[in-house]
């Protein structure tokens, strides 16, 4: 049974990697938690710190140990198992439908088909092992271990929403919409106007529950992807970009001194704005049901595992703050329009 062999292999790698007690090399912000990273030097060199933010004070921590390339030589053959997004291993022949392997073992695993990359999360011990690969794909450079971000948010009773996030005075707007709906344009217009930045693609949100306080939003990745030829903004915080051939966009890494604007502190989730190409030319109220429909399938599709939990939490996210919609807005009006949502 390949799953049992794989679980045994993962257990051994985890024990070896964490029992070695390698010193923590990097401690970075990772949404509503910090992530400590340890491992051999040649693997640590492959972590792009410009796409990460220094760890925040007073946040819980999860641990990640990097493997070396040699560790993968003994990886069992998993070619017979069905894969999902990010090469996530699924079991498809039990019960006639897709069954995630987390029903069979505590491990959530993503393996690229050519074994060039492995990410595995032990949901019981909350320990992660990663072989980052020889050449990290651009999506990984911009959003380090995105499946782990999703899994750890689910474990903390939150959800990662496929949306951009900007904030002002501690109050955040989630900006959702399909590709080419104008999310990045709204984000850049607001950044140029001095808003805080939570992310251009994924934001962690706590669905409000009775007696648990206000719904909050956390950014994770200080990166911004911009399609060439878009509107030009006078924004001094953007450094020289790197080209993402997969998304056909420039990636701006805002970590380090160029990161003015990124906000690691949690913000109150104050409103949700759904953009669509055919939407109204001014911001208008949007029904909770429409907002849920606009956000949910697209977000569920982004991440492997926990689809049901994700859907249920997205419903709560769409219900917990006022929801609005808009189409293409006049650039000069965008900051004022967004500010009105936060009033």
């Amino acid at each position, binding site marked *: 049974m390949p799953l049992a062999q794989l679980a045994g292999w993962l257990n051994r790698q985890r024990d070896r990697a964490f029992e070695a007690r390698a010193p923590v090399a990097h401690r970075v912000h990772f949404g509503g938690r910090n992530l400590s990273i340890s491992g051999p030097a040649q693997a640590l060199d492959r972590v792009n710190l410009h796409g990460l933010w220094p760890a925040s004070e007073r946040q819980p921590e999860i641990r990640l140990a990097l493997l070396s390339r040699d560790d993968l030589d003994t990886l069992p053959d998993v070619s017979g198992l069905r894969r999902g*997004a990010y090469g996530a291993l699924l079991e498809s022949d039990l019960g006639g*439908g897709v069954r995630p392997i987390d029903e069979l073992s505590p491990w959530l695993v993503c393996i690229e088909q050519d074994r060039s990359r492995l990410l595995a999360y032990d949901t019981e011990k909350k320990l992660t092992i990663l072989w980052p690969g020889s050449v990290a794909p651009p999506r990984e450079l911009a959003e380090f271990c995105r499946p782990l971000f999703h899994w750890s948010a689910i474990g903390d009773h939150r959800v990662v929403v496929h949306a951009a996030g900007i904030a002002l005075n501690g109050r955040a707007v989630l900006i959702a919409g399909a590709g080419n709906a104008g999310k990045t344009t709204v984000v850049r217009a607001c950044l140029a106007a001095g808003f805080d930045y939570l992310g251009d693609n994924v934001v962690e949100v706590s669905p409000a529950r009775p007696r648990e306080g206000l719904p909050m939003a956390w950014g994770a990745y200080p990166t911004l992807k911009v399609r060439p030829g878009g509107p030009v903004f006078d924004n001094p915080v953007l450094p020289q970009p790197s080209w993402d051939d997969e998304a056909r966009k420039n990636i701006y890494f805002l970590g380090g001194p160029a990161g003015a604007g990124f906000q690691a502190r949690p913000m109150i989730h104050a409103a949700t704005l759904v953009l669509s190409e055919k939407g109204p030319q001014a911001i208008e109220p949007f029904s909770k049901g429409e907002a849920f429909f606009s956000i949910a399938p697209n977000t569920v599709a982004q991440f492997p595992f926990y689809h049901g939990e994700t*859907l249920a939490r997205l419903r709560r996210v*769409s219900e917990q703050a006022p929801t609005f919609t808009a189409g293409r807005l006049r650039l000069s009006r965008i900051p004022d329009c967004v500010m009105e949502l936060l009033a």
Partner: protein
Amino acid sequence: MSPDKRMKINGPSTIFDQSDGQTVIINLVTGHYFRLDEPSSRLWERLKDSPSCASLLASCRNADELAAKLPAIIDELNSHGLIVLADIADGKADEKPGDWRFEGFALEKFTDLEDILGLDPIHEVDPELGWPHARNS
């Protein structure tokens, strides 16, 4: 449609939730997702919870109208892999007669995410580019 059968959600590959009267249903195997308006959502809730088709019809104020449409509705949901027929659930109380009114059913289908949601990266992705790029046929 057999009166001594009931509908069951085809889990875990089918997930759904409802907000503000709208239901979102996602088939994680095909990658297709669906939207139900408020009247359709009411029937969906009844379908998945009714102990039997006979009980569902008995609870409906305009049962004749529902009875005429129900086989096609069940066929449609079944063809999209969203429900399966199951034996009558033991211990479930019958619904109250005349409890609700059938006001139509429209399943809106969307396929734009099937390349991401339903893609098996071993067999269906571009071998050079990997997930989420589909193999060119």
